[in-house]
């Protein structure tokens, strides 16, 4: 594959950021859920 370094860097950055953001979001949601009453979570 030509320019493999650039192409793999693009995929690595994109998918790395997506996975990182998803994990951060899930963790933040779980941590906040412990401190907020269920009545303040209308989606549950």
């Amino acid at each position, binding site marked *: *594959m*030509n*320019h*493999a370094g*650039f*192409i*793999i*860097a*693009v*995929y690595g*950055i*994109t*998918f790395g*950021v*997506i996975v990182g*953001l*998803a994990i951060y*979001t*899930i963790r*933040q*949601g*779980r941590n*906040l*859920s*412990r*401190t*907020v*009453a*269920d009545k*303040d*979570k*209308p*989606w*549950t």
Partner: protein
Amino acid sequence: MSTEAQTFKGVGTPATRMYGLMAIVALGWVLLGGLIFTPEDAVQGDAVRIMYVHVPTAWIAYLAFIVTGVASACWMIGRKHSLGFDRVAGASAEVGVVFMAMTLLSGSLWGRITWGTFWVWDPRLTTTAFMFVTYIGYLAVRGLGGTAQQRARRSSVIALLAVLEIPLVHFSVVMWRSLHQRATVLSPDGDIKMDGLMLFTLLFGVFGFSVLFAWLVSHRQRIMAMQDARQTSALDVAVAERLKEAQA
């Protein structure tokens, strides 16, 4: 005495779990199809593989900022000024900024291969960078102090002005002379000159990133709802304490 473990309800629901699963499947295909199964481009060679992530991330950034604008308009027009709209606007802008950053990075690396440089002050690149900075400003304004309604009022005005940049960015390649290529899939004549598997991978990528966007916005706006609830309860406690002090 009960020894039951304390249970709590998080931000996930069956619907968001389904979005998440669909996103994983679609993005898995983008990874495999984009890197391995799709053919080289006749002109660009392997560099075209960057398109399968660059175009969908740009699409999601546009979509996110449009959602921010629409949700802000709904907050402004609605009689109840529901904070749900404001949270969707904020969550969507957060996701949009992340995807815009990825678009700029992937575009920069693609530009290094095809143009020989990471950056040029080309109309498309410049307007995109301007839009990116605008939405960082939008998020900064959301982070200023005040009540949730004050935050919604301030940020909705900015969102409605900022959304006007989207047509400027999209049509910059038509209005000015630009190094950046014009629309391939959304070309006005409807003639798509692309191999079938390449087009499928690109469109499936757009679908996968769109589902991911829905998942992220759903979760992030719920996180904002919990943050607002915490802020409100902390404020209630502080007011009650001051009243108690005054009465003592």
